């Protein structure tokens, strides 16, 4: 009589029992945890603005990465498009959306690489040079590593999509990935403001 199965199933006629999707809740939790990590790095950045004892200083060496920023932010639209297309069973649209996202994300990471190259070899700024170098590379680097992780996942999705393995029933998973990518974009807005606007 005390079996679990004996626990009455008497709400059958009632409202259907629907719960939020696992993937999305899990991703939201991850995003909250990651935001807290970024927050600490941002706080450290702001705390140390103007406290470097030696040069080079941000206003001498930093240039606004407008092109990369535009690319990264527009990739939010392409990934959104990919998910929306997949919802409507439009696999070709999804493929295009993914390809666009990978391309734009790739351009962004290339501009960051170029910037770092310039800073290291032409301006002589490394993590150990001064507090600016320390906070700059760690914050921008933390973001860049998130972009790279996102790109790896996107490339995988793109590959599967090319192989024709991404179908409508995968829309929810792709949406989880797109949430992550929107997060990476959102963080860039903060990093951009702090590093290139406040910090200069």
């Amino acid at each position, binding site marked *: 009589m005390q079996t679990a199965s004996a626990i009455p199933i008497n709400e059958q006629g009632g409202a259907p029992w629907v719960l939020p999707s696992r993937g999305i809740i899990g991703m939201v939790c991850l995003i909250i945890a990651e935001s*807290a990590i970024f927050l600490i790095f941002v706080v450290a950045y702001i705390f140390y603005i103007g406290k470097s004892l030696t040069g080079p200083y941000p206003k001498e060496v930093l240039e606004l990465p407008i092109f990369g920023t535009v690319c990264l932010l527009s990739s939010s639209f392409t990934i959104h498009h990919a998910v929306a297309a997949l919802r409507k069973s439009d696999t070709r649209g999804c493929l295009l959306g993914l390809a666009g996202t990978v391309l734009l994300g790739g351009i962004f990471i290339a501009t960051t690489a170029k910037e770092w190259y310039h800073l290291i070899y032409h301006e002589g700024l490394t993590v150990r040079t001064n507090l600016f170098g320390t906070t700059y590379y760690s914050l921008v680097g933390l973001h860049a590593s998130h972009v790279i992780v996102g790109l790896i996942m996107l490339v995988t999705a793109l590959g599967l999509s090319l192989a024709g393995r991404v179908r409508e029933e995968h829309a929810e998973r792709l949406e989880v990935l797109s949430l992550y990518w929107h997060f990476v974009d959102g963080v860039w807005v903060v990093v951009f403001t702090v590093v290139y606007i406040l910090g200069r």
Partner: protein
Amino acid sequence: MANSTPVMEAIDQTIESKRRPPSDVITEWVSTVDHKKIGIMYIVYALIFLLIAGVEAIIMRIQLAVPNNDFVSPQVFNRMFTMHGTTMVFFVGIPVLFGYGNYLVPLMIGARDMAFPRLNAFGFWISAFGGLLLYFSFFGGDGLYGAGSAPDVGWFAYAPLTAKVFSPGNNTDYWTLGVLLSGIGTTATALNTVTTVISMRCRGMTMGRLPLFTWLMLITSSMIFVVVSPLTAAQIMLILDRYLGSHFFDTQAGGSAVLWMHFFWIFGHPEVYVLVLPAFGFVNEIIPVFSRKAAFGYPAMVAASAGIGFVSLSVWAHHMFTVGLGPAGNTFFVFSTMVISVPTGIKIFNWLGTLWGGKIIFTVPMLFCIAFLFQFLVAGLTGIMLAAAPFDWQLGNSYFVVAHFHYVLVGAIVFGLFAAFYYWYPKITGRMMSETLGKWHFWLFVIGFHLCFDFMHIPGLLGMPRRIYTYEASRGWETLNLIVSVGAIFQGVAVLILVYNLVRSYYRGEKAGRDPWDAWTLEWAVPSPPPVYNFAIDPSVNSRRPLWDLKHPEEPDSDYE
């Protein structure tokens, strides 16, 4: 069990006879993704570390038992308190609570497993690896020739003590990496717990019907995201400082040591609540069952717990009153700290309200809960004393502080934990623990606890600083310290009795049946131990106490909700 059917007896039997050769068993455990097995592994792993950290505590107390002792060297003493604090917090407290969370949450909400079983196994193994790495430092910390060279920077690892110049060798790196890995595992498990509670509940299990323990695991896990991540970030910075020569905490290059303190305590203070909330959860489940009454004020309990979780995020700097934050900062943190006593008070009243007029049954788990209530109250009172900045200036870094926080950590958390051991052991193993041994454990531990930590307040008030490895005979602290040490040894013996009881009952305990305590939550509806996937048919509930409804169809809870 009197009222279980022959079919269920048969299932109980098959589960019983399933003891197989060791190699099979090992493969099965190492590769498992079953939430119950992972839960048990967490608990066992935490118990092992509890013994180790207990030995470290006893070494410290032997050293301090008499004045001018030279049982250990000053540096070994530093290593002992560093390892003891770190181990207790990261490798006992968190794993054991998540162990119970893992085991119980899916059962309590009528789910068949956690939301992400493989992530669950990952979380366990990465945390366990963190613990092993930390203890490996005993062999490799200062290079292979430096056996016995564990970290010695304190569990708070204040800058600039952790800078390369002040702690050469690798022992600080072992600390950082070990704790970092355990933090990653903790975050993974917290994510899993939140997702499980939100999206795996059985039909009818609305948020308003979650068992209180599940609510508290949900609150704790949500806190973990915003509490553990800052520490992870700070540790990444520390690693960069030590390996790439960056300057976050390097005062020579304009870096700040106070920044580390902020980052550490943003983690460190709420961490105490991360540990104590699940312990509240145990008590919330156990007191009603042994008072034979429904928990008093369920919504108030939930609201108060969420309130505690929330406010605790804004009080960290009461650990830094003596740093000199300025009057405005101090005032803010004094008040926010005091505010915590409001929801805490609500919880205490609710527990008393549950006990009030109940038919109290003094089983061992109930005894631990009652001691918990009393000790938690006292800890709250000394906490309010310390929350006042002027008082803290006097007592900060004295033995009084050590006594206060052990009142919470041991008097509340460990007592709640012991209660949980006795209460859920029958479910987990199918056998009862010995009540006689349990009573020995209880009384020895209570006496030891009060000898140790009540008396510890006094040398603190008399000016004995914490983290000193010895003292002179002329200060009037000698007798007190001896009493404290004797108390510590009592507690050690009591824990050995617990371990003996755990092992012995596994083989020789009385058969438990599915519901030995006549309880009300879903985990008691399945056989003990529960089969893989928990429920033969997905359950469906319509009140907070589904088993009560089953046993008392004439007066179901659902009529009152």
